[in-house]
């Protein structure tokens, strides 16, 4: 009887203890703190995000539509989302209102309104009582400010949720959205697809539209670049520019507009598609006046390059393709430019090298030069014409002595001198629709000879961000960082690049070195432990034997 009573008392005690511990753990869910030990604090709200939400001009609402019953695979996502939003709330004082809603409680009209905004349920397969079924799950977010809103349709699909939230808040609370212009009319890459042709920059512009207004800019017969354009991108022009168009671009830069130029000093031979031949870059003369030249050559990087499938007899193997260099830190990117901060790698398919003409560049107090991207020390610039066949011998004629880093992208920031200084202002190009004898159109703006502080970025690659190359995450990040640093500052750059960094192994490790590492990893400590253990037991047995001998001797002496 006594034992039974003790068992029941014991059970009650244990149940009470478990109850107390559970309550403590539940309370712990509300009152907690975290210490992020990672190098870049990638699991903590970035200081840029904190800065954005701590300086909100007015109340921002975040409504999270999340189903009450989530499948287990999404419950961790839900917890991460709640933790992240809790950090936003803690940094935002009272100007951020976060509300979690279960869409199951919404009326049909309210659900319809959500669908119209882009937030919809997603079907997830679940198992319930041995049966597979499909469950409609909500996990979307609406961020609103005054009468504007942005949505994140399905949170788990977001590759960088903090970036998506902060950029949405930034976009909503900004007074005006910057406009990026893409020049047309000289064979440049298109941004808008037509019924018959996919635009080569359609994916890029789709991404940019999240933060900017994208506008095609046609200079017509020489009209100035519209005033609303803050940055003008000239993406791989292939046709010549008139003097008037060059002048318009020059004056855009002089008046503080930011200019981004991409292109190469070659073109593919129409007769044989695997041959690259000389072609002067159409803006060569203008860029040279600012101190930058896109050379007539093709970059080759024997050390860091893209691997492509190649046929080797019956086998298909992945081999080096030196005509697609890969730029990587720390040597490939400058340490002090926000554009390349945190960038892991950048693909440069079929690029040309860039030369800086220092005699044309203003002194350092007026101009800062960022050499944005450089190939590895195993590179050289191949002279034209040249084949792009992957099965050729890529070694330069001078051997290893010819190999050195090559500049691929450069950014000049500061005060520029007009390329038209001392020259008459070019008149407007003839208007083909104008009546015969009509007076040529006159420029109503005076020429600006010295610019206000602005920026010129030149990239020796036409396909850096086309639809094929932009799938490489580094290329998209590079261009987005560039646009942000030119248009809205570098607040979002830190967040965009806050992912788990790639830390590659030494590519030059030989099989012997790898086996050496394995040997040390496998056997070094176990052998040490075995020696230590054996030594210890040997000494112990020796001591035992010694003691036994002494005891025997003592006994003998006693006798």
């Amino acid at each position, binding site marked *: 009887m006594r034992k039974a009573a003790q068992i029941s008392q014991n059970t009650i005690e244990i149940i009470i203890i478990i109850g107390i511990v559970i309550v403590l753990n539940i309370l712990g869910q509300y009152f907690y703190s975290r210490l992020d030990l990672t190098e870049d604090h990638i699991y903590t709200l970035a200081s840029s995000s904190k800065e954005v939400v701590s300086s909100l001009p007015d109340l921002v609402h975040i409504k999270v539509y999340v189903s009450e019953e989530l*499948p*287990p695979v999404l419950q961790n996502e839900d917890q991460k989302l709640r933790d992240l939003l809790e950090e936003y709330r803690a940094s935002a004082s009272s100007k951020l209102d976060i509300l979690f809603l279960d869409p199951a409680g919404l009326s049909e009209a309210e659900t319809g309104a959500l669908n119209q905004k882009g937030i919809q349920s997603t079907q997830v397969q679940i198992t319930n009582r041995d049966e597979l079924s499909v469950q409609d799950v909500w996990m979307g977010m609406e961020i609103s400010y005054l009468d504007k809103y942005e949505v994140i349709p399905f949170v788990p699909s977001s590759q960088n949720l903090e970036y998506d939230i902060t950029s949405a808040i930034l976009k909503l609370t900004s007074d005006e959205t910057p406009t990026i212009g893409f020049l047309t009319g000289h064979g440049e890459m298109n941004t808008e697809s037509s019924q018959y042709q996919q635009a080569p920059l359609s994916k890029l512009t789709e991404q940019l539209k999240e933060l900017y207004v994208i506008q095609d800019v046609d200079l017509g017969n020489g009209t100035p670049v519209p005033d609303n354009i803050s940055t003008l991108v000239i993406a791989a022009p292939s046709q010549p520019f008139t003097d008037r168009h060059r002048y318009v671009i020059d004056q855009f830069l002089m008046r503080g507009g930011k200019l981004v130029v991409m292109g190469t000093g070659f073109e593919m031979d129409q007769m044989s598609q695997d041959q690259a031949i000389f072609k002067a870059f159409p803006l060569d003369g203008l860029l040279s006046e600012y101190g930058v030249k896109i050379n007539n050559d093709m970059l080759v990087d024997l050390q860091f390059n893209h691997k492509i499938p190649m046929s080797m007899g019956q086998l298909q193997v992945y081999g080096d393709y030196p005509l697609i260099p890969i730029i990587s830190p720390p040597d490939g990117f400058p340490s002090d430019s926000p554009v390349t901060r945190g960038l892991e790698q950048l693909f440069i398919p079929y690029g040309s090298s860039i030369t800086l003409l220092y005699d044309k560049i203003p002194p350092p107090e007026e101009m800062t030069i960022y050499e944005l991207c450089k190939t590895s020390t195993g590179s050289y610039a191949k002279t034209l014409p040249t084949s792009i066949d992957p099965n050729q011998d890529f070694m330069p004629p001078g051997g290893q002595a010819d190999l050195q880093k090559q500049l691929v992208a450069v950014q000049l920031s500061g005060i520029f001198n007009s390329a038209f200084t001392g020259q008459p202002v070019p008149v407007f190009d003839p208007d083909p629709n104008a009546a015969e004898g009509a007076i040529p159109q006159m420029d109503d703006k005076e020429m600006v000879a010295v610019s206000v502080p602005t920026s010129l970025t030149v990239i020796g690659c036409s396909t850096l961000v086309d639809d094929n190359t932009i799938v490489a995450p580094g290329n998209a990040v590079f261009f987005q960082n560039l646009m942000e640093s030119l248009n809205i500052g570098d607040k979002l750059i830190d967040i965009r690049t806050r992912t788990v960094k790639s830390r590659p192994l030494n590519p030059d490790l030989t099989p012997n070195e790898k086996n050496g590492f394995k040997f040390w990893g496998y056997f070094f400590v*176990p052998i040490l432990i075995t020696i*230590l253990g054996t030594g210890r037991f040997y000494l112990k047995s020796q001591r035992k034997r010694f003691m036994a001998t002494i005891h025997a001797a003592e006994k003998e002496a006693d006798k």
Partner: protein
Amino acid sequence: MKRVVPVFNRELAQYFNTPLGFIYIDVFLLLTGFFFFELFKYFISEQASMRNLFQLLPWVYLFFVPAISMRLLAEDKKIGTVEVLMTLPLRDWEVVLAKFLAAFIFLAVALLLTLPLVVIVAQSAATGVKLDYGPIVGGYLSAVLMGGAFLAIGIFFSSMTDNQIVAFILSVVTMAVFLLIGLPDIAKFFPHAIQRFILNISLVSHFYSVERGVIDTRDMLYYASVMFIFLFATIRSVESRKWKA
């Protein structure tokens, strides 16, 4: 607490007074080395990271920790030394705590002996690549805490029986349950209403949370809770020998 120290010293010394302790450590190191280099193919993954090692540790622990914990009290019970131990001027909780701490330190020593792998990872990284030591510290902390939780479970089952094999099997099964319920593919078999609770009481989700390099008071509280509950239950189990029918 003063009375805990001599028992703790005696228990810890026991691991190194028999070849068994050295064999345990050797097997643990060879296993982790094999998994790290061969199973997860460190040199093919091409990433200078220890994450593969830590991601696997819960499953290595599943058999390694019960092998340590199974004898803690079951052996004393079987050969009768538990009675001698209990006649010493020690409280039951002091005996349990001393044995737990000794096993915990032994496990931590085994774990720390994998540190040469960190050196290998750092040495094999590309020129200019620096390791992120945050996740490595988090990984070791997570491994130590999970080891503590597993040991608490193991010592509890060791106190329940005088058969070490039974203690081993019960520990493995319980630990496996604590691990498996944290996997979404297993948790989905539970009713919706308790799925979140199930995921929260699993060792896996808390392990991976700390292992990525984030020290969260909720995870610390969880590990402390698991250890406390099972040690408390062990103390009660040891006390039950005094009960009279």
